[in-house]
C-alpha cells in the first residue's frame, strides 16, 4: 500500500478531507471497499466513485463521537453502528407518525413520510455510500435543519415532522383543509407546509384571547387583530407559551426555534393585507345553492320562481330568490331568463363559494355554453383566489 500512498493524485481526495489525518488510511479504505464492492474484478476507480466512497467513509467516521482519537478504520466502524441505530430510529419514528398522521388532503403530507421514507430505507447504502441522500423530502418543514445531510437529515426531518404533526392534531382537520384552500386553491397538489398557517392562527387566537385551536373568525376579529399585532407582541406571546398548558415542551421549543420566521410571516401578512385568506369566516346561515344535475324543478315551480324574481324589491332579494334553485341546469336557465344586471351578477358571484364557482365553470366548459358576463365574473373570482 505504500505505493498507493505515493501515487494517489491529490485531486482525488474529497474537499473536506483536510479535517482528517492520514490520506494513506483513507485511500486504503476506499480501495478495500471498492474491491469488496466489485469482487476485486476491477483494478481502476474513477475520480467520481473514489470521491463517493471516500465521502461515505468520512461521513460515517464523523458520526463516531471520538473519531479524532481513532484510526480511520475504527472510526468508520463506530460510525456504521451509529448509522444502524439511526436507521432503526427512523423506522420507529416513521411508524409513530403514520399511526397518528394528521388527516389532510395535501398529497405530499402522507406520501413523504410514507413512500418517501420507505424509498430512503430501501435504497440507502450505509456501507459504501453513507453520505448520500437518495431522496428529496417533498413535504417542506417549517424548521428544516439544513446543517444535516444524508441519514442525519432524514432522522432530524422526521423528528421535526413528528412535532409538527402533533401540533396539527390539535386542529379540526376538515377546517384545516378549508383554511388551506382559502389561502391556496391547489393546496392539495402543492408541497406546502401545514404547520405554518396553523401556528400563525394559533398566535392570533392567543392575541385575541380566543380558544387557541379555533379556526372560525368574524370580520371584527380581523379588524381587531390588525390593530393589535406587533412583532414584539408575537415574540412575547411565544416566550410565554411555557407558562400555558396547551402545548408540550417539544412543540414550544420548536416554535421558539422559528419565532423570528413567524414574526416575519405575520408582518408580511399585515403589510399584504392577506389576513382574510388565513381565516375561516363563520358560515352565514343563508341558504347555499346545492348544485346538481338531477333535481330540476317542474314547470310550475320554475314559473313561480321566475315571478318571484321579477317582483323582488332589491338586488339582495333577487340573489336570495335565485339561491332557492337546487339544480345546475335550472340555475343556468333562470339566469338566462332573468337577464340580471351587472351589479346583480357581481353580487351573485360574490355569494357563491369557490367550489360552486368551479362547478358552474365546469358546466360551461362541458357544454361549451358560456353565459357572459357571468363566466367572466366567475373566472375573475377563481383567478383572484388562486393565491
Amino acid at each position, binding site marked *: 500500500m505504500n505505493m498507493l500512498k505515493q501515487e494517489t493524485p491529490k485531486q482525488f481526495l474529497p474537499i473536506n478531507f483536510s479535517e482528517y489525518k492520514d490520506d494513506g488510511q483513507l485511500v486504503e479504505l476506499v480501495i478495500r471497499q471498492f474491491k469488496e464492492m466489485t469482487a476485486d*474484478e*476491477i*483494478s*481502476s476507480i*474513477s475520480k467520481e466513485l473514489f470521491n463517493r466512497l471516500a465521502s461515505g467513509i468520512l461521513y460515517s467516521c464523523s458520526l463516531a463521537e471520538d473519531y479524532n482519537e481513532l484510526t480511520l478504520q475504527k472510526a468508520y466502524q463506530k460510525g456504521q453502528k451509529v448509522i444502524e441505530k439511526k436507521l432503526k430510529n427512523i423506522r420507529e419514528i416513521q411508524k409513530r407518525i403514520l399511526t397518528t398522521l394528521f388527516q389532510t388532503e395535501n398529497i405530499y403530507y402522507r406520501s413523504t413520510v410514507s413512500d418517501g421514507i420507505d424509498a430512503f430505507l430501501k435504497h440507502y447504502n450505509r456501507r459504501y455510500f453513507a453520505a448520500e441522500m437518495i431522496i428529496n423530502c417533498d413535504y417542506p418543514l417549517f424548521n428544516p435543519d439544513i446543517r444535516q445531510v444524508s441519514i442525519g437529515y432524514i432522522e432530524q426531518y422526521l423528528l421535526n415532522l413528528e412535532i409538527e404533526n402533533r401540533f396539527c392534531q390539535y386542529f379540526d382537520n376538515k377546517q384545516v383543509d378549508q383554511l388551506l384552500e382559502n389561502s391556496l386553491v391547489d393546496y392539495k397538489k402543492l408541497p406546502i407546509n401545514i404547520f405554518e398557517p396553523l401556528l400563525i392562527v394559533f398566535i392570533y387566537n392567543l392575541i385575541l384571547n380566543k380558544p387557541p385551536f379555533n379556526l372560525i373568525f368574524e370580520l371584527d376579529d380581523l379588524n381587531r387583530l390588525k390593530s393589535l399585532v406587533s412583532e414584539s407582541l408575537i415574540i412575547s406571546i411565544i416566550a410565554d407559551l411555557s407558562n400555558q398548558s396547551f402545548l408540550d415542551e417539544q412543540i414550544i421549543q420548536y416554535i421558539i426555534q422559528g419565532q423570528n420566521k413567524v414574526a416575519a410571516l405575520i408582518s408580511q401578512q399585515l403589510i399584504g393585507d392577506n389576513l382574510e385568506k388565513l381565516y375561516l369566516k363563520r358560515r352565514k346561515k343563508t341558504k347555499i345553492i346545492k348544485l346538481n344535475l338531477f333535481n330540476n324543478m317542474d314547470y310550475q315551480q320554475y314559473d313561480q320562481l321566475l315571478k318571484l324574481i321579477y317582483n323582488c324589491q332589491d338586488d339582495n332579494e333577487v340573489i336570495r330568490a335565485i339561491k332557492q334553485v337546487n339544480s345546475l341546469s335550472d340555475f343556468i336557465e333562470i339566469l338566462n331568463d332573468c337577464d340580471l344586471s351587472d351589479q346583480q351578477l357581481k353580487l351573485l358571484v360574490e355569494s357563491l363559494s369557490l367550489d360552486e364557482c368551479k362547478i358552474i365553470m365546469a358546466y360551461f366548459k362541458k357544454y361549451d355554453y358560456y353565459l357572459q358576463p357571468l363566466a367572466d365574473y366567475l373566472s375573475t373570482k377563481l383567478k383572484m383566489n388562486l393565491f
Partner: protein
Amino acid sequence: MGNELINSNQIAAVVSCNQFLRKKQLEISEQQAYEIVEVAKSCQIDYQLFQFDDKSTIKLIKTFSENQSLRQQEFVDTVKQMLELFYYLRSELDFTVDDNSIIEFLDISYRKTAYENYDLLVDQCDELIRYFNQNGSINEYVKTRNPQTVFTD
C-alpha cells in the same frame, strides 16, 4: 524514461509477461514495456482514473497474445491501442462491468466484427457504450455478437 509517474515495478510487471509471451514467439522489451505503461498512465490521467494494480494490463497483454494473426512487429502497437480503448470503455461503463468483460469484448470485436480494424473497433466501442447507457449491462450485447462466449461476471 523521463515520466516520473511511472515506476520500475510497473515496467517490471509488464516485462514479466515475457514468461508466457515467449511461448508464442512474442516478446516485450523494457523500452516497449515503458511505452505500454506510459499509454496506460496517460489514459488514467485523461479519464481521471486511479489504477491500483496492474492486473488489467497483464490480462490484456495475455488475451491479445492468443491472437495468432498478431506478429511481433504489430503486437505491442496493438496492445497500446487496445489499452487506450480499454480505458475509454472503463471510464464510460460503471463499476458493474468488470475489467475482464471489457477485455473480452475488445478481443472478440477486434477479431470477429471489426476485422482487426482500429477505426471500426472504435465505432463498436461507442455502440457498446450506447447500449450500456440504455440497458445498464453489456452481457446480452456481447452474447449476441458472439454466442459461444460465456462471461464470468
